[in-house]
Structures are given as structure tokens and as C-alpha cells.
């Protein structure tokens, strides 16, 4: 998203840029930090392909004694359930992100409009819930018993549709990138409020929308606790993250409590490729969302060029 400035600035590229040595320093700092960020993930990939014997012998290592795809074989053995949960995750993330971005934009826009008198009320309404909440059990009761969020897709989407944090972020984007004159001009042109928002404001604030969409998509993709709470019997609905989290939590529990559970559980524990499995699960979760990341980037970039043409 960032490089775009260079597109618009290209004509006077060197004129309006930091000096070459400074840029080299920037590169060095950013490169170092980026490596620092990505090496742990490579490490995870390596462990996921490490044989369990090697982990038992020498622990986690960048250079294992022997390689194995045992962990992936174990995960893929569950077959259909895995692909169904992949589908569920995509579905929940796509629908959830689309709806929540729309709701966030619709809520943040009036808050940004200084001529909307009730904006303080709506602002506080949202902000207050960032600080105070009813707690887990009461929320569970309301969702399940009052709103019927149980054993259905809605239970995995609705509880995360709205985030006051994202509203504030969106409002801040609107404040920093949409000039008041733009809206005034639109009003004078006789544009309706919804028309102004979607036809005039939205194109300008696309980087912000894409950022909020990214945050939402990540939140939906990583979510598993909702499935734990609300999907007990209709296991066809569980998302990937929960399926994998379940395996990991089972492996952890058995490792910690085998002395309580007798010979049978100890038996199960031995057959779990627990340590490489944990890492294989991480890889399976991270890869799709990491692949989606550049898509958001491009979206932001496109939004910016349109915005700058308009502005």
C-alpha cells in the first residue's frame, strides 16, 4: 500500500525523496526487522516437517536429524472434515468481513460528520462497550438463549460483526483523509446522504476501508472460541481454526494429565505426533491468510490512486 506514493511522485522521484544513503539505512533497518519477523515462521515450517524422533532426541532445531511428513499425514487423515472446515472458515471470513466492514463504515461515517448532533451519543454508545462488558457467562446466555446463536453459522459471525475499536479507526481515517469541503460540495450538488457516503466518500477512504477489512478478516480467520462455545453438536459447522485448535488442546491436555487418566489415555498420547503436529497446524492456518494479505495490499493501492485522482 505504501509504495503507491512513488507512483504519483514518479516524475520528480529523486527530487522529493530522502537521500540515497538514508534510504540504504532504511532498507537495512527494515530488512533486519523483517527477517526477524519471518524466521520464526520458517522455523515453524521446519519443525512441521521434522520427524518426531528427531524432536525427542535433540528438541526443536533448525537442522533436524531427520525429516518427516508424518504430522501432515495425521492432519490429512481426517479428510472430509478438514476440507469442510476450510470451507467454513472461508465462508465465515468472507461473509463476516463484508458485513462487518459495511456496519463499521455505516457507523463511523455519522460519527465523523460534525453536523450530526447525535454523534456524541452514538460515539459514547460504542466507546463505552470497549471498556465495560457483561462478562463471558451473561454474554453466552444472551447469545444462546435470547438471540438463538447456537449450532448455526450466525453464531460464528454475529458476535464479531461490530468492533468499537474498528469504528474508531475508521472514524480516524475519515477525519484524516476526507476534507469537510468534499461533503459540503456534495450536499450542495443535492447528493443524498447514502449517495455521498458510497459514491463520494468511499473512494477517498478506500485505504482505511481495506485496512479495517484486513483487521476483520484476520479476526474472523483466527477465531475459534466462538465455535467452542456455540457449536457443540453440529460439528459440520466448525471452522478450521477450531478443528486444529481442538487437536492441539487435546494433545496438550493428554500430555499434562496422562497420570490421571490411566493407561488408555497414555496410549492415545503416544500415537499423537504432538509436537510436529502443532506446527503443521500453524502452517495450515497461516498460509491461506498470508496469501490473502497481498490482495488487501493491492486493494488499498488501487483505492489510493483513485483517491488521489479525485483529491
Amino acid at each position, binding site marked *: 500500500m505504501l509504495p503507491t506514493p512513488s507512483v504519483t511522485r514518479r516524475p520528480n522521484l529523486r527530487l522529493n525523496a530522502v537521500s540515497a544513503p538514508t534510504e540504504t539505512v532504511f532498507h537495512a533497518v527494515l530488512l533486519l526487522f523483517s527477517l526477524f519477523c519471518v524466521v520464526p515462521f520458517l522455523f515453524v515450517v521446519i519443525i512441521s516437517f521434522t520427524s518426531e524422533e528427531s524432536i525427542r532426541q535433540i528438541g526443536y532445531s533448525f537442522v533436524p536429524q531427520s525429516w518427516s511428513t508424518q504430522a501432515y499425514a495425521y492432519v490429512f487423515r481426517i479428510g472430509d472434515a478438514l476440507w469442510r472446515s476450510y470451507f467454513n472458515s472461508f465462508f465465515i471470513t468472507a461473509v463476516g468481513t463484508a458485513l462487518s466492514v459495511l456496519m463499521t463504515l455505516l457507523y463511523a461515517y455519522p460519527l465523523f460528520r460534525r453536523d450530526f448532533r447525535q454523534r456524541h451519543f452514538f460515539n459514547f454508545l460504542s466507546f463505552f462497550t470497549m471498556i465495560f462488558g457483561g462478562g463471558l457467562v451473561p454474554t453466552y446466555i444472551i447469545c444462546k438463549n435470547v438471540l438463538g446463536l447456537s449450532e448455526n453459522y450466525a453464531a460464528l459471525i454475529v458476535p464479531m460483526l461490530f468492533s468499537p475499536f474498528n469504528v474508531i479507526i475508521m472514524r480516524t481515517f475519515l477525519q484524516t483523509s476526507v476534507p469537510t469541503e468534499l461533503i459540503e460540495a456534495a450536499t450542495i450538488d443535492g447528493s443524498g446522504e447514502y449517495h455521498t457516503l458510497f459514491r463520494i466518500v468511499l473512494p477517498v477512504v478506500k485505504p482505511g476501508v481495506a485496512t479495517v477489512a484486513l483487521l476483520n478478516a484476520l479476526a474472523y480467520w483466527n477465531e475459534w472460541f466462538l465455535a467452542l462455545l456455540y457449536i457443540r*453438536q453440529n460439528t459440520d459447522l466448525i471452522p478450521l481454526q477450531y478443528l486444529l485448535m481442538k487437536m492441539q488442546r487435546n494433545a496438550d491436555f493428554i500430555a499434562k494429565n496422562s*497420570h490421571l487418566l490411566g493407561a488408555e489415555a497414555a496410549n492415545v498420547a503416544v500415537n499423537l505426533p504432538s509436537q510436529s503436529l502443532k506446527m503443521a497446524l500453524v502452517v495450515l492456518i497461516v498460509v491461506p491468510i498470508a496469501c490473502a494479505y497481498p490482495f488487501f495490499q493491492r486493494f488499498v493501492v488501487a483505492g489510493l490512486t483513485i483517491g488521489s485522482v479525485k483529491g
Partner: protein
Amino acid sequence: MRKILALLLTLLLTASVFTFATAEAASLTPAELTIMFHGSNVTDDSAVLAKVNEYLKDKINASLKVIWGTWGDFDETSTMSLNAGDPIDMYFTCSWSQDEYNAYAKKGMWVRLDDPDNNLIEKYAADLWATLPQVLTDGAKIQGSDGLGVYAVPGYKDIATQNCWDINVDLLTKYGYTLDDIRNADYYSFGDILKTVKAGEGDSFYPLLVEGMVLERMATNSIIVAGDSGSTNLLSYYMNPTDISAEGPYGNVMLNKFATDEYKKFVEKTREYYLAGYIDPGLAVADTANDLRKNKQLTGQYLIGTQSYSLGYELQASQERNIHVEMVPCTPAYVDTTSSQGAMVAISTASANPERAMMFLNLLNTDPYLMMLLNYGVEGIHYTLNADGLVQFTDKRADYQPWTNGMGNVTLLTPTADQGKDFWDTFKAYYGAAKKIPIIGFTFDASNVQVEQSALVNVAAEYALALDTGAVDPAEKLPEFLQKLSDAGMQTYVDEANAQLTAFLAAQ
């Protein structure tokens, strides 16, 4: 004479209730029961539940829905459902799960089954009660929201505790020692053996493979006090290692676990072993200890380990680890409150149909057909019987693996081919011979000292494991630890426990 009479009466009642239940099944209104199990690995229960429901309809005119709780999620989902009053009729419970039997009985979450006004056991489950060993029915009797009574059906499973030294015999014999050298020694005199093996195996070999908390109990002959904090025990009850049913060195009294001479002696010895390189430093870190221990076991990289024993474990361990493993008992097998409450099923007070739930539990724990069906699945699909009539699982078993011990009376099950024909005879002989500790049935109720307990567990979590594995110097850390415990209200906690124990013993 009275016993025989009582037995006869029970038998009569059993028979009458049973015929009553079958004959009246049709006159019962249809009911739907939901049960939540622990530790399941079930992806397809349709075939099993179809059969179960067909059977239950005839027997008690009920249908069953199962929530297959798994190891990883049971604690969270069960407590959430209980606190929210979800319409689930029955829950797995025990002394170690988060929906802890005693605590949730106090909170009014479980139906009292032997309520004098509505004695469900007498009415619907007398035959079940007659089949259970007395240690279990005694152990289930606790102080709950409706007075002293039974709040769950105990599962008939491995009911005794026996801590053993887990010996890598291959390595032991390599250095010219025999199992008798272990049997005749104790923790404090392992030094020479450990030294020889450490010297022979090299610097990166750690001969002692311990779970800190278990090691502490083994070295000091203390037991887990039921109701004490679960994560890190604070109380000690010292038992008599030679005669389990007799009083121990301190008598029937609760002690601050960390303030006794025994504890001091133990941590000093352990520190000595740690500094000599006998204990892997990773065992002192809560989150690495378990993985590390499993890895070392499976690769045979240890000489002496600690193990809470269950029948036949040495054979299984030898197979898994590809070495010859033997278990050398530290004390005889004993039954305490904790082990007698190892696996139970309770009826929730949010159940709309506690009577029918009781009928179901009675059936599950007395009817081999139903128990087999729910546990091992459908014959011909999930398992087959071999020529000797023993169970052999098919590939379909992978889709349907409930946790056997968490369901009920496992002795109803047909033995598997691996277990062998007379498995249950050996089982009953071993566990039947286990002796009771003098304070069996006592459960500490920490609700009056919950504030202190919360502070104390945090203090204990800071020091106990590091001291129990020798990773820190007791000369410096033990006094610091004791001071902090005392600041956090340890004396109040111990006094409360002793007051309750005195009252308990007086009532007996």
C-alpha cells in the same frame, strides 16, 4: 446376619425395580436426555445412537443426545454450561476436572441422588448401588448443597493410587545393578546408582526423570488432600507407608506441605541431585516438563522415573519405549478420596428429568449391552468378537472412540484381545486388595478461605516446582517461600482444614 438381610432386601428391590422399569416403560412419557462426556474422540456417532435410542425406547422410553466433550474443551464448555444453566441432564465430573465434583455439589449444580425426600437411588438405581465397591459409594458421599449425601454416580474403574519408581531395566542391568538394588533403597539412597550411571552415560544424560509434585509425594509419603488447591497442592497428609490403614507419623492432621522437616530434607536432597546433573533443568519449567518427560521416556533416556501406576502399565510402557520397564512400588496401593472420585457422572439440577436420567445411569452401569454399545460401538461395525469371544476393533473404531473410563462401570465390558480373557478378575483382585487410608471420605471445603487460597496458589506456583526439582537453592528460597506463604494466610488455611478434619473424624 443383618448384612445378609440387607443384601437380600437389596436383591429383592433390584429385581422389583427392574421389572417395574421395563413393564412401565410404555407408560412413561417420552423424554429426551442429554449427557456431556469427557475425553471423547468421536466424529460419527449416528450408528451407535440409533441403536442406543432404539434400546432406550423399550427400556425407559427415552432418547439420548450426547455432547462429546474432548480433553481440550471439556473444562471450559462444561463450566460454561453449568453456570449458564444449559438444559443438559448429565455431566461427567470428578475430583480433577474443572466442574469439580465437590465444589459444584456445594454450588447446588448436582442433584442429590439419595435425598431423603426423593431418594432416586432407592427408587431407580438400587441394583447399580449394589454392584459398586464400598470404597466408591463411601467416597461419593460428601457435603453438598442439600446436606451430606451422594451427588453423582461413581464409575467403577481403577480406583486405587500407587506411586512407583519407573525403572529402565536395560540401563540398570548394563551397570550391574538389579531391581532389588532399587527395591532395597529409597529416594535418599539412590545417589550411588545415579552417580555410576551418570558417569557412564555422559554429560547430556539425566538419570532422574521426575514429575516434581509426584516425586515430592513419593519421597515424603504424603497424599493429595481432596479439595485442596488442584494446580499446586498446599496441604500434606502423611500416610503410614507400611500399613496404609493405620495413622501416619503425624496422626490424622493436615500440615503446611512446605513447612515440615520431611519437605526440607526432600528439597535439600533434590538440590544435591540437581547440582550433580541427575535432573534435567527442563523439568523445572511447568510448560516444558511434560513434553520433555514424554520424550525422554519414549527414547529410553532415563534410569529412574516417577509414575502414578495403573494395572498393566509396565507392559504397555515396555512396548511403547522398546525397553524393559518395571515399576517398583513406593507404597502399597491405597484408596483415598481423590482416587475414589476419579470418574463420575452427575445429574444437573437444571435437568428437566432427573428421574429418567437416574434410570438411564442405572441402565448404563448395570446393562452390559448398553455399556458395550456406548463404549465400543456397534458389533460388526466398530468391533468384532474373535474366537475366544474377545473384542477386536475394526477401522471404524477411529470414528468412534469415547473415553472408556469416563463413562461408568468398565467391568461390564467384554475384555479386548489385548487385555485377555481374565482381565477383569485380575483387575478386581488388584483394586479390591487396595487399602483405604484412615481419612477416606474427607474432602476439604475451601470456600471459607477462598481468598487465602487464591493468593497461596500463586505463591506456591512461584516456588514449589523449582524446589521440587532442585532448580533453585533451598537454603535461600525455602525461607523466602515460607515467609510469603505465611504472609498470604497459610496458617488460616491450615487451621480451617484441621477444624474440618476434626469435625469429620468426630462425626464418623
